[in-house]
């Protein structure tokens, strides 16, 4: 069976794509699973958190996704990405499990958005050579409506055996719901061309605050999230991981604690990112809760893959 491929994607920034990507990587790596994180965002946030010395902050000569996708227009015999990809995959920093590998992004990756060459399938092609070496492949996509990098990521996420999926993180806000709408539209477009079998692995409610004053509005957005229906892909409620939030919050918020697959907003998440350590290494109850949630999500998605 091939690797579990998940593309974390939303057109909106700040909805938790990188948090979910690296959270899943940390949990899977902690279990000894072989993980590859592919950073398609030119801000390279995931790569930095994973401790990779990308050109801007460490090694100017390190090979990145940009080098894999780039083809010199004057080169009559372009390098096959299946030959080159091994040079672009690096171990995560020493704080991370030794089974986690990273195909990092870098700032110059933004040049690829305007690349006139047919580069959209180079990542997918390159992964053919190494996908068998991994149990989980995570794609951290940039918050953009399609474009070359999103297309390259989603095309690669489909995988050769099909069944790769898009995991859509959504904050319970207007932005979060807009991001889901737009991400679903992109998935449908990809199915019409590059990735006919690309699926929606799920919608993850992320960065859900514990702020009491915000609970009412978040509950309203949660209700909407479960009520919307996509004419092609079906009810959103079937795509959202977990049950709806209780209609009325308890004053302590304990009722929400029973809702599974809900990635809550905890300061420890930002602290772990700042320290460039996996959430699995972070101390405290909040870190444990996050690890448990990422673990639940990973288990669910692995189970679904097995059952397919």
């Amino acid at each position, binding site marked *: 069976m091939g690797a579990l491929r998940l593309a974390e994607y939303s057109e909106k920034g700040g909805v938790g794509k990188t948090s979910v990507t690296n959270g899943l990587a940390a949990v899977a790596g902690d279990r000894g699973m072989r993980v590859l994180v592919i950073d398609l965002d030119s801000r390279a946030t995931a790569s930095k958190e994973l401790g990779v010395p990308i050109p801007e902050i460490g090694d100017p000569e390190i090979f990145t996704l940009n*080098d894999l996708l780039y083809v*010199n227009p004057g080169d009559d015999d372009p390098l096959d990405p299946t030959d080159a990809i*091994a040079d672009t995959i690096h171990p995560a920093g020493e704080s991370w499990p030794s089974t986690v590998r990273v195909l990092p992004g870098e700032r110059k990756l933004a040049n690829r958005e305007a690349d006139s060459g047919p580069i959209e399938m180079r990542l997918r092609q390159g992964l053919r050579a190494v996908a068998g070496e991994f149990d989980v492949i995570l794609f951290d996509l940039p918050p953009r409506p399609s474009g070359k990098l999103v297309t390259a990521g989603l095309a690669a996420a489909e995988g050769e055996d099909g069944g790769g999926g898009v995991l859509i993180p959504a904050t319970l806000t207007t932005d979060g719901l807009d991001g889901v709408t737009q991400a679903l539209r992109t998935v449908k477009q990809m199915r019409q061309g590059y990735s006919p079998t690309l699926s929606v692995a799920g919608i993850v409610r992320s960065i859900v605050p514990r702020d009491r004053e915000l609970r009412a509005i978040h509950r309203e957005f949660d209700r909407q999230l479960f009520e919307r229906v996509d004419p092609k892909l079906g009810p959103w409620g079937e795509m959202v991981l977990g049950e709806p939030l209780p209609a009325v919050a308890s004053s302590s918020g304990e009722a929400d604690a029973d809702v599974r697959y809900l990635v809550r907003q905890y300061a420890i998440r930002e602290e772990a990112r700042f320290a460039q350590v996996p959430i699995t290494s972070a101390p405290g109850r909040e870190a444990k809760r996050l690890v448990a949630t990422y673990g639940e999500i990973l288990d669910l998605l692995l189970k679904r893959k097995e059952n397919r």
Partner: protein
Amino acid sequence: MSSLIKQGRGRSGLSKAPEGDPAAPPPEIALPEPRPGEASPGAGGVLAAPGEAVERLREAVPRPYEPVSDGDLLGAQERRDLTTCEAALEHLRLAFWVAGRALQVIRDARLYREAHATFEDYCLDRWSMSRPQAYRLISEWSLAERLLAVSPMGDKVSERHVRELLPVATVHGDDAAELVYATVAQADGVRVTAELLRDVVAIVPTQWDPAAAVLIIREFLDRDGQGDGGSVGRRSPFQTQTTRVRTGLADLATRLRKGKGGDPEQVRAFVADARRLLDQIEQSMS
């Protein structure tokens, strides 16, 4: 773990993509050669399309990003970004007089005539700019160019400096405004600010006499602690206010002596009122 990803590492022939930063400054905008017979080639080229230079500059300035390092020294890319951002600010600082010169060219050569009957119509329609605004920019640019030439601060003449000097240029001409500026700028230890120039302009005599003006300005700077290491920051609000009142009264006295005053009854009422206020000030000291 992965035997495969070690296999072949470094032997693929992969090389770093040679392109630069996507937000790096674009190459200089190539301006066409001046037409034969043009009086002042200088910077008198023509951009291919309105807004092209601004658009290129906008594209060149990077998007905001998080610090990439905690170190004190900037990396090569950070240094390039700083240069680009400072270039943008430099454009902002000098744009006002470039705009003024452009407006004058359009007005004097009647380049607006294809679509507009008058220069005023053109300014309002094309740039939502009123006539006074347009003419102020035109007045400022020529003065700015002169001040740039005499300023010991090089190109640090700001729009506000020029604006404070415009009343002198309007009444006495650009030579007078340039002399006022040069007298202030070349005084020892004086930091030229718009506020200081406003105070200096306020004491410039109504009747223009270059030698007398220089003396008055120097006395003002010495009296108010501006010279010899002084700075505008050392002036109190009281000093600023009394300077203006004194200058205003002196100007009024000169006008009255020359018979340019208003109704004698009104003058007498003003003098009585002023005397009463001065008495109040004096009494407040006791």
